[in-house]
């Protein structure tokens, strides 16, 4: 009886104890989950801010590489473009990019973030229409903000290439269209669970999605606009049109380098200690190697260490490592940087030779190295080096598989981004025109477009 009692008591106590223990376990798991959400959100938002800060870097670099008389114009463009991107991406871009839909485009919750979503729940627990982003356990608005700053970067890239001749309002319109119709479509293919993702193409932080898309849109813009007056003389002569402030350009490149520590490591969208430590080092090392590569090659080829090339080199290395920063070793990042640094110098000279006039080198930096960086994943990737199952690249013994997937991504993005951006440019050209008048271009867009100059006291002191 007492045994029976003991037994019953025992059972009851054991049950009570187990419930108690289970509750602790659940609570502690819950807390841990909350902690993880908080940690990841903190990381995502801080790195997103750094990417936002790249607007400053782009503004500095592009203003520095432009002439004094077009300063207000390029500042205005680079400033307003993020406002345009913010509203365009909220209105439609996010939805097309991350909404559930078909392999080509998002079709659910496309407008104004209005789709169902129970973030920060992840994976199986996720319930909503933005399932392509359900791998990261942060609130929906954190995901949105992080993606927004990337979209803004893509739009900004165009600004520098078309500088010193494009009408202000035409640029604004193009940016708006690009953020809603070009960027999110390609984004959907790769980051939105679309067909390129399915096919096994990888682009960790956006060599293709952000940089080469910006680059293609810049290329069509530059071609349709034509070169700046006086840039190319007779008999193939290439005239120098130096930027008005190399200090600004150099300091801006440092700001971009800094921002890239948000761009790449932030793309984990989780405070994954070992991955982000790895990525920050590959990112930095590629930049360093590219700087030395570009400086050396320009020293050898041109006779002097051209600061503009050094700066473009840094950015080239950063763009090139962006796709693979989480997939390659530190050693490979040195190689990728070195190649990017050399590539950018040759590319700048090549574009000038074929009379494609890009005042800031955006094509060589973002397009050429965006493409190279994407392909580099197919060559240098090491499976699971920071946890992601990419498979091995060519040089790690993985054969051609990954490289072919990367090539497919590059090619298909080229086709879409080139075509879509050309159509938009041409449509704007047809309706309101793209290029300012030659008189305005000579006098400067600051006076023509904005009725003001950037440095009035340099004109006549007061």
């Amino acid at each position, binding site marked *: 009886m007492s045994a029976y009692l003991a037994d019953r008591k025992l059972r009851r106590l054991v049950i009570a104890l187990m419930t108690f223990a289970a509750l602790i376990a659940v609570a502690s798991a819950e807390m841990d989950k909350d902690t993880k959400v908080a940690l990841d959100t903190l990381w995502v938002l801080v790195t997103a801010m750094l990417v936002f800060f790249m607007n400053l870097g782009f503004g500095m670099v592009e203003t520095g590489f432009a002439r004094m008389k077009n300063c207000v114009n390029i500042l205005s463009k680079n400033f307003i473009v993020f406002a345009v991107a913010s509203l365009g991406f909220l209105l439609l871009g996010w939805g097309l990019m991350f909404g559930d839909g078909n392999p080509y485009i998002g079709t659910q919750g496309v407008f104004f973030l209005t789709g169902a979503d129970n973030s920060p729940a992840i994976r199986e627990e996720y319930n909503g229409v933005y399932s392509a982003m359900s791998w990261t356990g942060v609130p929906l608005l954190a995901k949105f903000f992080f993606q927004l700053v990337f979209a803004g970067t893509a739009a900004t890239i165009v600004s520098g290439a078309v500088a010193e001749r494009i009408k202000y309002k035409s640029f604004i319109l193009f940016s708006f269209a690009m953020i809603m119709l070009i960027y999110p479509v390609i984004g959907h293919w790769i980051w939105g669970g679309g067909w390129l993702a399915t096919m096994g193409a990888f682009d960790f932080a956006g060599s293709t999605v952000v940089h080469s898309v910006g680059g293609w849109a810049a290329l069509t813009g530059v071609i349709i606009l034509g070169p700046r007056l*006086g840039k190319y*003389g007779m008999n193939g*002569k290439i005239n120098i049109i130096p930027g008005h402030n190399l200090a600004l350009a150099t300091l801006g490149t440092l700001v971009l380098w800094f921002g890239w520590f948000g761009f790449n490591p932030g793309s984990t969208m989780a405070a994954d200690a070992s991955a982000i430590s790895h990525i920050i080092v590959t990112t930095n090392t590629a930049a360093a190697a590219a700087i030395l590569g570009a400086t050396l090659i320009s020293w050898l080829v041109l006779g002097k260490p051209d600061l503009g090339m050094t700066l473009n080199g840094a950015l080239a290395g950063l763009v090139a490592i962006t796709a693979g920063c989480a997939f390659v070793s530190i050693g490979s990042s040195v190689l990728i940087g070195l190649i990017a640094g050399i590539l950018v110098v040759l590319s700048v000279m090549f574009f000038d030779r074929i009379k494609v006039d890009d005042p800031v080198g955006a094509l060589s930096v973002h397009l050429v190295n965006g493409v190279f960086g994407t392909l580099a994943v197919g060559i240098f990737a090491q499976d699971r080096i920071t946890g992601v199952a990419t498979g091995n690249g060519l040089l790690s013994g993985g054969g051609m598989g990954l490289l072919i997937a990367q090539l497919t991504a590059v090619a298909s993005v080229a086709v879409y981004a080139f075509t879509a951006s050309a159509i938009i440019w041409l449509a704007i050209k047809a309706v309101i025109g793209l290029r300012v008048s030659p008189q305005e271009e*000579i*006098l400067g867009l600051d*006076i023509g477009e904005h*009725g*003001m*100059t950037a440095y009035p006291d340099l*004109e*006549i002191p007061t």
Partner: protein
Amino acid sequence: MKLIIAYIQPEKLGVVKKELDSRKVHRMSVTRAKGCGQQRGYVESYRGSKKEITLLSKIRLEIAVNDDFIDTTVEGIVNAAKTGNFGDGKIFVLPLDECIQIRTGETGPAAIGGISRYVPSSKDD
């Protein structure tokens, strides 16, 4: 000897210099200036207020020449700088009493000219 002062549109500096080079006028001094003439100005706006700007950017050339170079210099500037629009600029010719080359101490016509050591290559303009 004369001192020729010319105001031209900034974007014309390259061709004017090239034209003068081709006429063996290699020496000159250049400054930036603001000019006000028949060329229309523009309205500047700043923080909601407006102002009519009539002083526009110009390049000012100062060229000391010996008498046999006066005409070719003036002609060269006119040829290269002329577009037919308001704002093309003006040339002023002033008497020049003396010229001294600091390096050599030479004076007079000899100090102004002669064939310059530096012969611009055809590549630059």
